[in-house]
């Protein structure tokens, strides 16, 4: 059973192709659920066999591909990738389940969702920069279609903005990859796109300016994806227009690619960059700015979904902050935030989707009192919102607590600033709940009713997972910590922070 990872990627790919070719939506969704479920099973097998105590790559696979460029298909998992693989495999089947009732071009819809799974799994498992980049780009296309075919009124604008904006970022990142590759080639005389190899040779680059340029280009690529302020403006548009399944995947998985890049690529080279101090400050500023800016913008929103979108920006700010703090536990907290936010934001977007579907609007002022007719939704949505505002006992709290507590060692000012955001975070969540879900029922909405059972079921599963990981984060946190420790060995060795 050596090739589990490639099997895990191949199954949904095959599923996607079959799904595209099916004729009825019943077949399409069954195949989508089946293949994503199989992928989940494989990831669970991997997860159960994963040794959390070692930081090296496990389940490594390598196949030759483009020898003249030194590209090979290398896959493997460590504590950084494993939780995100698990997350992807949890979110996608649940998204399929949530969107069980999709009727418009159903075979394409489910096929695209499966392709997203293929893309993110590839990103989280590939250890060759070239392959990584390919998967990184592949992810864009299904999402573009998901937005532009199944999206809202301004879907064209949003879809293309999403596509171009993030594509530019990837290309800038590609430039940096070129430079790393060239550098490593010069060192050894052998072309090689191995990710670790390229990153290891980063320190050999002589010019500090070039080092910083490469670093910034990579950072830009990841921050746009996350997205961090001020590179975030594609996100609200994309989310508002995307169909619920698209939003869920976008927020729960695609944003995580940016964070993954921070841990996989940025942190290993950070200590060797030309001016680590400044770059750390830069990351910290961007992190805190994202937290506060996202919070205040969320406060200003009238559209429930847009509010959730801005809250994502705010939450992803914690990831940047935690990564910038360079403390093992803050970094693992940031990793955990990625995992946890993936689960939480899925619930939030699903809630928005159910509301949109049955009430026909997401504008907070036009809603009101829907809990009366949608008690199950109200309950799950409340759980999601509470998790999102960082209620203890839910996974979000663990992550934010670890980040805040540990970042204080190196970035005290930023932590204090971030703490200010917490009150307002609670503010907009509760304000939205109060206006939209509680209060007097707005009779103009007509007769509304709870979402379909499969939607509610998938939300319930997510909520249970949020609570489970909130009470017992160890299954994923341990492996994250192992890798965070290993990542930061360099930091300590280089004396970047004392």
């Amino acid at each position, binding site marked *: 059973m050596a090739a589990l990872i490639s099997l895990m990627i191949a199954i949904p790919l095959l599923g996607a192709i079959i799904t595209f070719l099916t004729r009825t939506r019943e077949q399409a969704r069954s195949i989508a659920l089946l293949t994503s479920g199989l992928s989940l099973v494989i990831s669970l097998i991997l997860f159960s066999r994963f040794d959390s105590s070692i930081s090296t790559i496990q389940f490594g696979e390598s196949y030759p591909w*483009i020898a003249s460029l030194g590209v090979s298909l290398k896959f493997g998992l460590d504590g950084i990738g494993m939780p995100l693989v698990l997350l992807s495999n949890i979110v996608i089947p649940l998204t399929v389940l949530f969107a069980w009732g999709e009727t418009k071009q159903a075979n394409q819809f489910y096929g695209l969702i499966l392709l997203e799974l293929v893309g993110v799994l590839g990103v989280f498992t590939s250890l060759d920069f070239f392959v990584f980049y390919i998967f990184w780009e592949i992810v864009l296309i299904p999402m573009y279609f998901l937005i532009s075919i199944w999206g809202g009124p301004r879907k064209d604008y949003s879809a293309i903005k999403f*596509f171009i904006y993030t594509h530019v970022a990837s*290309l800038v990142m590609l430039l940096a990859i070129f430079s790393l590759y060239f550098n490593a080639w010069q060192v050894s005389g052998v072309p090689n796109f191995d990710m670790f190899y390229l990153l290891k040779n980063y320190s050999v680059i002589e010019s500090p300016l070039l080092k910083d340029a490469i670093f910034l280009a990579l950072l830009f690529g990841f921050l746009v994806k996350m997205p961090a302020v001020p590179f975030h403006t594609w996100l609200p548009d994309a989310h508002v227009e995307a169909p619920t399944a698209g939003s869920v995947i976008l927020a729960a998985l695609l944003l995580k690619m940016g964070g993954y890049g921070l841990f996989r690529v940025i942190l290993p080279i950070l200590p060797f960059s030309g001016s680590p101090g400044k770059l750390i400050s830069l990351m910290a500023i961007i992190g805190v700015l994202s937290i506060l800016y996202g919070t205040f913008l969320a406060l200003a929103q009238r559209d429930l979904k847009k509010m959730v979108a801005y809250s994502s920006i705010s939450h992803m700010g914690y990831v940047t902050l935690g990564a910038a703090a360079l403390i093992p536990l803050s970094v693992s907290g940031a990793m955990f935030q990625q995992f946890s936010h993936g689960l939480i934001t899925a619930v939030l977007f699903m809630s928005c989707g159910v509301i949109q579907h049955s009430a026909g609007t997401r504008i907070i002022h036009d809603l009101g009192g829907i809990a009366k007719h949608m008690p199950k939704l109200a309950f799950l949505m409340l759980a999601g919102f509470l998790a999102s505002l960082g209620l203890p006992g839910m996974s979000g709290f663990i992550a934010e607590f670890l980040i805040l507590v540990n970042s204080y060692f190196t970035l005290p000012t930023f932590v204090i600033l971030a703490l200010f955001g917490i009150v307002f975070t609670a503010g907009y969540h509760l304000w939205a709940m109060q206006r939209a879900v509680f209060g007097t029922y707005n009779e103009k909405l007509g007769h509304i009713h709870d979402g379909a059972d499969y939607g509610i079921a998938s939300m319930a599963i997510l909520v249970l997972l949020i609570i489970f990981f909130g009470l017992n984060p160890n299954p994923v946190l341990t492996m994250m910590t192992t890798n965070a420790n290993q990542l930061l060995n360099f930091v300590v060795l280089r004396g970047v922070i004392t």
Partner: protein
Amino acid sequence: MSYGLLAPEIILTIVGLVIILLGLLITDKSKNMIGYFGAAGLVVALGYVLKTMTAEGSFFYNALVIDPLSQIFKLIFLIVSLMVVIASISYFKDNRNQDEYYALILLSTVGMMVVASANDLVALFVGFELASMSTYVLAGFEKKNPASLEAALKYFIIGSLSSALMLFGMSLVYGVTGSTNIPVIIEFFKTNPMMATNSLDIIAMIFLVAGFGFKMALVPFHMWAPDTYEGSPSVVSSLLAAGSKKMGFVAAFRVLVLALVAIRIDIQMTFAILAVITMTYGNIVAISQRSIKRMLAYSSIAQAGYISLAFVVMTQMSVAGGVLLALGHALMKGGAFIAVALVGYMVLSDNRNAKNLDDIGNFAGLGKRAPITAFSLLVFFLALAGIPPSAGFIGKFVLFYSITIEAVAQASNWLLLVVIIAILNSALSIYYYARVIRYMYVLPPNGEKIKEPTPYVVAILLAVIGTIGIGIYPEPFIQMAMNAASVLGV
């Protein structure tokens, strides 16, 4: 001396001539067979070329050479011609002038192949003209269609002007060096570097650039391209954009090495400016087009900008990248034009008197009406935009990579700027591709589902397989391109 290595050219010439002869002998009805005959000839030639990918040889007093560079371009030309011929079986079905059409395509292909092999300015010029003149006629082949004729006329006037300019440039080069043999010329400049920078030589160089630039559709020699691509029959546009355009590149690769030897940095800068302007112009203007062929024409101009980045640094890597992108572009653009031809067929089958066959509105709901075509166009567009895994991505990847490493190695900011502009352009291009994709997949169809004619489908799928195949398994192609680049000795 064995002429075995020239077999493809010889075969094609013979087949072309036989087709003309056949045309005189057979009835109009049975002329539909001719296409298959032409395709068979191309397949045989293609087989020969593939067999001799790494062969070397020189003929006719060193006027023609066979080397990896010539072979890979011959491969491109043959594939494109094959696609075009196959598609034309449908496009020109029941046309009573089919024989001439196929003969011209084969002869123009021979012309292009001669250019690819040319090692002497005379051979180069002759090949160039053979290919050009055949395509002038092809562009105006729909002789009842004013647009087609106008396209041919514009193509012809600007083409002849460029030929004249090129010839003038060649005459100057000959005057300075006393030879028309390219290696001899290069050797001359190497030994007399002072000679390389006199005014005559610079003027000569610019005239040559103008001549090649015309074929490449490089700004400011591009003006004919949109009109011609739009007006010509779609299959001919495919040949022009995918095939004859590359002729300019192979000629430029062969000859401009000399420029590299001669005047180095400055030609580098000039090409960089030209390339940047070309790609930006192409992309910006493409955004607002409603005619898909015209949009593809501008996109083709933009692609020419990317490929000519290879001249900016002229390293083995960059030339390899240029060659790869040329190969990819041939497949993608060739396929795309053929797909547009299919859409035209579809529109005509809706309404026999339809105008503006390639209007973007006709692409609405194509995903439902002609799924294979739509999917193929999707692949081509994404590949043109440089999304992996595709030939377009691999080509751009190697090309941009080669520029970046030069920028890094020379610590050259402006080179870096060039790459960044190229990258932004590449992202911008997504905009207009995505627009068509939206029409194809998002908007509702305005007609019934059609049965896609087999020849078109075969031709398009050939291109799709090539596009994706190179993306998924680029190794042999990269090897080929690297070998080709090594011929230039840069």
